């Protein structure tokens, strides 16, 4: 395997086009994700942000008629190469969805351990430590440490979402994909998740899809603006929001459309 051209670069898409059957939802997007940064994807509904995100861990190909052209490089290696096992790959890239998705039949502990156990048998103490570590990083440990064996459904919506973050973190992924993680949360829950983004980027490379422009401005280092499947503009967040170079971007962030 060739060493990555730039060690600071974790993830890169090269001319990525994502299709549903014959309809392209993401068109020819080349985007770079530097290591340990937060990149926000913004744009109006249906602009292809979520589809783009789902290409990064090969979830898109599970959708009806989903396929891609182009490349996605993780540490310089094309994840769509035939030699790559998509299932193993997904263990290196954590994902959190719009709505909390705890497994209803599992306890809090088992939910967090789910991604570890799928990798095969590990000593109990190792799993214990990994679960605690993941819950601490997701800022949930103190709230659940006394009821790890209780059903995950007993948690509030915001706690469930942080549980899903912990579940995604437990297998120690390199990249964390967040698909509108605060869409179903109240302001307090939203704030917790945003704070998490700041803490987690010291260890992970994060890509977050959001409809909330303030949120993008608060949590991200880079912001990418998508429109109708095209990547319109990408830049450092403070620059994109203060002096966008494209008129479409300016129109969107000032609320004139979208």
């Amino acid at each position, binding site marked *: 395997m060739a060493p990555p051209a730039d060690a600071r670069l974790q993830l890169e898409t090269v001319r990525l086009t994502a299709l549903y059957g014959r309809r392209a939802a993401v068109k020819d997007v080349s985007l770079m994700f530097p290591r340990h940064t937060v990149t926000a994807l913004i744009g109006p509904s249906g602009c292809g942000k979520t589809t783009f995100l789902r290409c990064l861990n090969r979830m898109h190909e599970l959708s009806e008629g989903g396929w891609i052209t182009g490349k996605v490089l993780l540490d310089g290696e094309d994840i769509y190469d035939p030699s790559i096992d998509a299932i193993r790959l997904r263990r290196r890239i*954590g994902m959190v969805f719009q709505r909390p998705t705890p497994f209803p039949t599992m306890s809090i502990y088992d939910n967090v351990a789910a991604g570890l156990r799928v990798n095969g048998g590990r000593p109990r103490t190792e799993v214990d430590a990994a679960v605690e570590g993941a819950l601490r990083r997701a800022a949930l440990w103190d709230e659940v440490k006394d009821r790890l064996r209780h059903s995950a459904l007993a948690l509030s919506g915001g706690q469930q979402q942080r549980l899903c973050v912990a579940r995604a973190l437990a297998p120690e992924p390199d990249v964390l994909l967040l698909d509108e993680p605060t869409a179903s949360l109240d302001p307090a829950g939203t704030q917790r998740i945003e704070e998490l983004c700041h803490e987690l980027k010291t260890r992970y490379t994060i890509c977050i899809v959001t409809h909330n422009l303030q949120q993008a401005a608060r949590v991200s280092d880079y912001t990418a603006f998508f429109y109708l499947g095209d990547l319109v503009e990408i830049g450092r967040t403070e620059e994109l929001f203060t002096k966008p170079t494209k008129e479409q971007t300016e129109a969107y962030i000032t609320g004139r459309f979208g």
Partner: protein
Amino acid sequence: MSARRLRRRIVSGAMTALVAVLSFVAVLALVLILGYLVAKGASSLDWGFFLKNPVPAGQAGGGVANAIVGTVIIVGLAALIGLPIGIGTGLYLAEYGSGRLGWIVRFVADVLNGTPSIVVGIFAWTWLVRPMGHFSALAGSVALAVLMVPMLARTTEEMVRLVPHSLREAALALGYPRWRTSLRVIARTALAGIVTGCLVGIARVAGETAPLLFTALGNLNFSTSVLQPMQTLSLQIYVYATGPFDEWHRLAWAAALVLMGLVLLLSLAARWAIRQRHGAAR
């Protein structure tokens, strides 16, 4: 304004009353059947009824011990054969059954579901009883299993389809292989529904008589050999109820009550089991 509100209240009240009456009618039928069974059969129930075998016609006393054991064996064996096939088929239909094969399986299951049970009995007679040369409990179990499979397959499929798509995605995004997602997450989430479906299936075939008439045949003696003819409660009820003796009629009522009791016990046990499972995670 208030006229409209009045109208709304009247319609709402009338509809509520209507559905209440309809549910009452539905429950009434069940209560009447149960009550009648208890009234007619309870007086014949004693230890002897459960512990003794039938006595020759004309004699008083005797019990249905052989039929109770026979029912448990035949239905148990049918469940052993039918549950894995039925649940497996249901999982297949829900998870992989979007293609042509799935369509065919679904169609066959629906046709089988509507097949009269006596036809299934003839099928078992042709393929098992005749080649073996004699009636057997095994042939009865196979006939009941054939009745169970399409029912279980469709119920399991429905229950699995009720599991939200987002859970499947969450498991796949964690790096679960597809089969493991199906078993560990989807099937487990749908478990309560699947178990209920199994129970309904078992309870339904426990009362079947027609497919057993020329497979398990019935047996006046106590037998636990699945290769020999065996008595079941439903067969016993059929023989006693259509017989000429008052004593037999009395026993038929009691046997019907016992059969009903067994089915009731089964569903209570499963409900309890499900609650235990879910309670453990709470």
